[in-house]
């Protein structure tokens, strides 16, 4: 028997403790990552690809992020706040002015006013760094679930 009991659970038989979002599959969803730290961008790409998502673009500043997102129209956008040229909140504002993807803010800023701003803009999730795959994927599923129910 595996040491970690959760590993033995079948993905098709969710435990009674799971919330509905835990059963949602993100496989095949198209994603754009806007993040100016190389290490984190690489970690996100590897983790999301391993989970079956398709990375259709990456950007290391807000302006490029807007251009790629509006061109690719992904299902999910991961958006850092502090980036050169254009910050992530302004980039999000410009994206939402055109269409509404499931946009999740991923930042080191834990301040309440940033979270409030992101929410008012229409972000479906707000993830505070540092992030690991274990916490990232459930939060993304939750954001996707919330985005779908609103949309």
């Amino acid at each position, binding site marked *: 028997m595996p040491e970690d009991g959760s590993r033995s659970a079948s993905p098709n038989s969710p435990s009674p403790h799971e919330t509905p979002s835990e059963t949602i599959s993100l496989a095949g969803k198209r994603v754009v990552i806007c993040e*100016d*730290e*190389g*290490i*984190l961008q690489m*970690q996100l790409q590897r983790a999301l690809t391993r989970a079956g998502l398709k990375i259709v673009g990456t950007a*290391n500043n807000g302006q490029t992020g807007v251009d790629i997102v509006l061109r690719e129209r992904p299902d999910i956008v991961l958006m850092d706040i502090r980036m050169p040229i254009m910050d992530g909140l302004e980039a999000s504002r410009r994206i939402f002015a055109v269409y509404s993807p499931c946009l999740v803010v991923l930042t080191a800023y834990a301040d309440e006013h940033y979270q409030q701003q992101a929410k008012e803009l229409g972000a479906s999730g707000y993830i505070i*760094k*540092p*992030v690991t795959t274990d916490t990232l994927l459930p939060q993304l599923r939750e954001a996707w679930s919330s985005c779908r129910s609103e949309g």
Partner: protein
Amino acid sequence: MKKKQKRFSHTARDIEEYEPSRGGWTPREEPRCQGFAERKRAEAQLTQAIREVHHRVKNNLQAVSALLEMQIDTGQEYLPVESVRNSLRQIKAIALVHDLLAHDRPIGAVDVAQVLSRLAGLLAANLRMPGRPVALCVEAEPTWMPTQTATSLTLIANELISNAIKHSMKERGTRGRHDAIIIRLCRQEGERMLLCVEDRGPGFPAGFHPGMHGHLGLELVHSLVTIDLHGRITFANVLDRDGECAGGRVQVCFPEQPLSP
């Protein structure tokens, strides 16, 4: 001669002074007002600087977390000790930047020449094999860079120098200064910087690309060069007089980042 009264409270009278000979509370002279404004400005700058440091620390913790996770996610059930040592070297490299940041001036900038020199010493001690001395030669003038740029460059140098040492010892063993690994940092035209690491190992196969062999370290270097430094990386072989491969040379070229005022 009457002395001025001391004030004990910080109220709206902060910019006033009690002067009995002038009939009580009077506005401070102009230089005092300027001093107050300057102090407030300095406090605001300090608050901003502390905020920046916290943000930097948090981002570096995120970087450490990501480096460890990528090491774990290589699909192996048990991590080889060498992978853990590799992670430790990466964490030490980040710590090296912070160490110099704490002692150096100007605030928020690091002399990368010093970082490279210390990093080379650290890696030579860490990776040497019994009976095989490692000779490293660092050629760099003092070069101040913003912390984030310095951290990325240090992680890049850490991977490249580690690889150079491993390949040099595995293939030939270093035989003295002529076979030394050379680490060079210099300015180029158009406000660009060049980091070059040259070894006497087996060199690179034709058409080599950092992502082609699933080498996590070189993949990391590629990400740091292109995303963090907005630069480019080239891999080439060093040829001897007979046109034979005499080692490998990696060059990282990137735009110089301005220091914060």
